[in-house]
């Protein structure tokens, strides 16, 4: 199991967004996600996309550093869309076959490629990419040590908020352990890319990596548990040293996203967010 670069990278350090209360980043993402999932209309999605773009830019994440992540997002969105629209017969948003403006049908599968399905695919892109963009700042513009306090102050019980903190603490060291184990097994002629015998064989080939890393991590946890017990972890109400407070700007941004969600919800309830197929595309089909 190769690992991608996993050490937390605080790329947006010092940017406008990084100076916001970290809770704001979580809440605005949640509000934004709730808004986006209600919308299929490309025009509204474009507006939401613009909001997401401005928000993303304010985190000043250097593109060079996150190229790989964006490539993954694009690949995955494309994958979802292809599977959703093509392989499963192109059912979409309640359109029946007769209502479609079909350009042509895919050989073998017979899936209609139509004005509607193209619009649908475009809408999917416009839904997922802004959501991913809104998520980037949480990964790259929140100081790693702020994650725990942020969730604790969002109402997550202290111990679980600390578990989140601890998860981020373990990510780099366990990734390093994983790399060591990969090397140790390669020296023994192990190569996970080597053709396994069928899918079962391929899955089994992961055991030489997964077993030592997992068991070692659990055994090593004994000391971590001791170290925490010895410093009175979980014995009473906890102070979080990191002081979090919403300032005027934070409140304003939060209000902005709340209003956005409100408007979108009203539009959606009144039926104004459904798939909108541009005239031009319809005329090209039959």
């Amino acid at each position, binding site marked *: 199991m190769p690992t991608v670069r996993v050490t937390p990278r605080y790329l947006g350090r010092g940017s406008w967004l990084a100076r916001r209360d970290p809770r704001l980043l979580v809440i605005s993402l949640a509000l934004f996600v709730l808004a986006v999932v209600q919308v299929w209309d490309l025009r509204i999605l474009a507006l939401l996309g613009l909001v997401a773009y401005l928000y993303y830019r304010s985190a000043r994440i250097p593109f060079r550093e996150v190229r790989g992540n964006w490539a993954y997002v694009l690949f995955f969105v494309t994958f979802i869309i292809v599977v959703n629209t093509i392989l499963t017969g192109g059912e979409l948003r309640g359109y029946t076959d007769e209502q479609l403006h079909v350009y042509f049908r895919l050989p073998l599968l017979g899936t209609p490629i139509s004005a509607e399905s193209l619009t649908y695919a475009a809408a999917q892109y416009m839904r997922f990419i802004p959501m991913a963009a809104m998520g980037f700042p949480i990964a790259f513009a929140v100081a790693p040590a702020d994650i725990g306090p942020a969730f604790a102050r969002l109402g997550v019980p202290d111990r679980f908020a600390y578990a989140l903190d601890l998860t981020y603490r373990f990510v780099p060291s366990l990734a390093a352990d994983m790399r060591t184990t990969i090397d140790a097994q390669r020296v023994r002629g192990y190569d996970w890319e080597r053709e396994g015998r069928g899918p079962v064989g391929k899955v089994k080939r992961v055991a030489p990596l997964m*077993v030592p890393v997992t068991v070692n991590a659990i055994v090593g946890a004994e000391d971590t548990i001791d170290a925490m017990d010895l410093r009175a972890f979980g014995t009473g109400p906890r102070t979080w040293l990191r002081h979090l407070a919403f300032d005027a700007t934070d409140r304003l941004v939060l209000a902005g996203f709340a209003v956005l969600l409100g408007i979108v919800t009203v539009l959606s309830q009144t039926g104004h967010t459904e798939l909108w197929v541009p005239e031009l595309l319809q005329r090209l089909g039959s």
Partner: protein
Amino acid sequence: MTALMYDRENPWEVTTRTIVYAAIGAALYAITAQFQFPLPGTANVFLRPSFALVPFFGFAFGPIVGLFVGLVGNAIADQISGWGLLTSWNWSLANGLAGLIAGLAGYWLAGGIRNRVARSAVAAAIGVVIGFLFVLTDIWLGTAEDIGVAMVDNYIPVVIGNLIVSVILVPILVAAWEPVRESIGR
């Protein structure tokens, strides 16, 4: 403070141990989740071997740990890849439920299946089949059109993939961990 959950009366008890194991499991899952490959002969069934960690942690350390490993592990994996912490929050929750239910199933089956290694495979399978029903929420979130599409596109592929890896790897992990558990612990 008791060593391990099998000695415990209460599967919901949260100790420092629960917290540390949960964090370790989630971190492990997060850093290894990117490694996946398509099941030959299918278009959308992916095998993600590291998913086995979710039912394993649930089975070995209890439902709370299983829930955390699946939920947080998947969310952070999505964050690391760039997909976004909450973009697929319902899938993260489905992962968590699979871990939670695998943990509970371990209890329920304790009387029925004596062999712990075999029991772990069954518990993991139950966790996957029930837990991932939650991805059907894609229907409301608009990622899937209707129940048919959600079943065919989402639920069935993910369940097949995760069943395969869990049934193979969870017993291997349990068999490796079991004897070690005896030699450490308090």
